[in-house]
């Protein structure tokens, strides 16, 4: 199959799901339309990073299919499929909302579409627009339940992220200005032309442009201290949406930061940008650790865990080198596999106990032995314990930072990861083992297959990736690291 056909199917599938879903307006059919679209998307996206002949530009230079973008698209596709399966079970629970289901699935597919396109956009200005579009679509998903809390979360989300990301637009404009010293007044600002022009740009514009872009896209990634929208949006959206936000959306914005970073590296001005990324990474880990220790709400716990893992990603790319980049990419897919599992478990528990508070969720073992066991495995995996994939990737990132320049950051990362491990699992200990003070109120079929299968599915690759780092992936990571100009 040619690459163009593959990409066409990849983008048409969710688009069709949106259009047909809105046209038919039947709850059941829109569920299955969206599910079918997500299956097609995954089938198309899985081999994408491993195809020969990358990087390649398509559509008159507007699309850039490079291994890095394809890798992120693959992560998005994985999360989209898992969320689509889970959404069927989760959204049916609330019978009052059946009439709104077609709208929900249309928004979900549209959200997936924007996230599938954003990492592949070649022009930096259009990338900014694509990221802005992901915000606009997902705002309505965050506020979908239309109660006071979710409206508050949606409002904070759109205001904080739009104002933050306008800084990235300023950064892009400054970089374009820098490029005019090389190319003359009018040219196309693409990732490739930026990296080529960077060595000849005035350093002041390059550094300032990068820092503004880092703050702007960092807001979208959820790096502390710009993370304030993240816990609200992740905790108040429906659980499948939380999984999409955390496992997929954050990565698509991270791509931009990584590509700007590569441009500064190409210019030999990478020291300050790398240090800035490392500092934001450590800050995110710190904020994640502090709020995980004293967290009272189950989904906010997961949200702060996302802040933590975005911090780990930032550290991986910030430490740089082949090992750092490889570790970060490996971490990206591991996080995209593990985080949906945790949000789904949290969604099940919330609907079963009719509460968001961790204190109300007690006796999980008795209430759901099977999916409870899977959820616990997910919790062990997300905290970076062996034998799961996140252990390997966090270990690789730690090794990348174990040098004279960033030893302090690596040590801080190690310490904070241990704190998070203890605190996170302590919450789970309480939920599983502590005596329940009140009887569970739920009596529904919480354990339907739609809800357990998407939790069990990612556990298998997580385990496999924890004991076996595929050699074809190592080659791929090397290719990406070289393309980003990382020195070994």
């Amino acid at each position, binding site marked *: 199959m040619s690459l163009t056909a593959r990409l066409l199917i990849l983008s048409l599938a969710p688009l069709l799901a949106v259009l047909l879903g809105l046209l038919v307006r039947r709850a059941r059919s829109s569920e299955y339309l969206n599910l079918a679209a997500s299956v097609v998307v995954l089938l198309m996206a899985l081999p994408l990073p491993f195809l020969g002949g990358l990087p390649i530009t398509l559509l008159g230079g507007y699309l850039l299919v490079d291994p890095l973008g394809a890798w992120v698209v693959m992560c998005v596709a994985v999360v989209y499929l898992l969320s689509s399966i889970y959404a069927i079970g989760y959204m049916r629970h609330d019978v009052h909302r059946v009439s709104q289901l077609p709208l929900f699935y249309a928004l979900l597919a549209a959200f997936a579409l924007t996230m599938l396109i954003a990492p592949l956009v070649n022009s930096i200005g*259009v990338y900014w627009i694509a990221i802005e579009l992901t915000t606009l679509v997902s705002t309505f998903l965050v506020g979908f339940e239309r109660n006071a809390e979710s409206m508050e979360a949606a*409002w904070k989300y759109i205001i904080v992220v739009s104002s933050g990301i306008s800084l990235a637009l*300023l950064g892009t404009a400054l970089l374009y200005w820098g490029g005019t010293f090389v190319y003359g*007044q009018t040219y196309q600002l693409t990732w490739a032309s930026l990296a080529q022009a960077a060595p000849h740009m*005035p350093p002041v514009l390059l550094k300032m442009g990068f820092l503004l872009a880092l703050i702007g896209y960092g807001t979208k990634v959820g790096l502390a201290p710009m993370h304030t929208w993240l816990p609200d949006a992740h905790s108040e959206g429906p659980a499948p949406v939380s999984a999409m936000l955390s496992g997929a959306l954050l990565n698509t914005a991270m791509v931009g930061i990584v590509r700007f970073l590569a441009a500064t590296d190409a210019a030999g001005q990478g020291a300050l940008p790398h240090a800035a990324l490392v500092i934001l990474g450590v800050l995110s880990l710190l904020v994640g650790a502090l709020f995980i220790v004293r967290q009272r709400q189950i989904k906010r716990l997961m949200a702060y865990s996302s802040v933590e893992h975005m911090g780990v990603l930032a550290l991986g790319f910030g430490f740089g080198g082949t090992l750092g980049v490889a570790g970060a990419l490996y971490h990206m897919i591991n996080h995209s596999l593990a985080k949906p599992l945790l949000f789904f478990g949290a969604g099940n528990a919330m609907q079963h106990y009719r509460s968001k508070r961790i204190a109300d969720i007690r006796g999980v073992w008795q209430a759901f032995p099977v999916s409870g066991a899977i959820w616990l495995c997910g919790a062990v995996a997300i905290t970076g314990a062996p034998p799961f994939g996140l252990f390997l990737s966090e270990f690789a990132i730690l090794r990348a930072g174990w040098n004279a320049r960033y030893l302090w950051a690596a040590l801080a990362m190690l310490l904070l990861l241990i704190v998070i491990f203890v605190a996170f699992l302590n919450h789970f200990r309480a939920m599983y083992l502590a005596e329940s003070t009140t009887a569970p109120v739920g009596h529904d079929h919480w354990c339907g297959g739609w809800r357990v299968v998407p939790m069990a599915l990612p556990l298998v690759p997580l385990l496999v990736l924890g004991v076996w780092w595929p050699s074809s992936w190592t080659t791929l990571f090397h290719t990406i690291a070289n393309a980003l100009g990382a020195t070994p």
Partner: protein
Amino acid sequence: MLADHLDPMAASLFSLLVIASLLLAFVMLGSRWLKDYMLAFAAQSWLIGILSALIGYYGGYRELYWVAGFTVLFRGIVLPWLILRILRRLNTARELHEVLSTSTSLVIGAAAVIFALVVAMRITKDLGITSNVVVLALTVMFSMKLIGFLMLTLRHEAISQILGILVLENGIFLGTQILVPGMPLMIELVLLFDLLVAVACFGVLVRYLLTHIGSTSSRDLRRLTG
């Protein structure tokens, strides 16, 4: 670049428009009535539209006429009209709770402009640019950014926050047209359109806020913490 060899007439016209835009940003910062605020924004968008047309004329960038037309149409007419419609539906005509008094916020705004000027002078010194128009454009771009963030933090009404974000972007529009008038047309047009979509989304959200929380002030958004 264009700003390096401007004839004096063009240079003074550009400076005049840029400074007038900055003044309008201060009008917004000093106004408590949402309608005045909105009108100042509309006027600012008109000025930026005129600026685009002038740059297109003096620099020979034909496509900037399109940008000028769309800026005036979208940001000068459609957006203010949309916001006016939202305003009519709401019962709030003004900011009720002031975090800082008007005079204090104006003084902070002035400090922001001085800071922006210092940054702009440093950058132009590094680049070896002597043109006053460039320094002015950079200063106004950064200071409108800072003033926009100032308005976002000091104002609580939903409409004020939308306008705050629009001011952030007005600053970038103004700056980029002087500094990089060649920035591809496509992007600028899509950006304008994107803004329209954004404000439509904001409008829907404001209505939801009103029905589900009973208020459009972010002071009342305090359930989610920790």
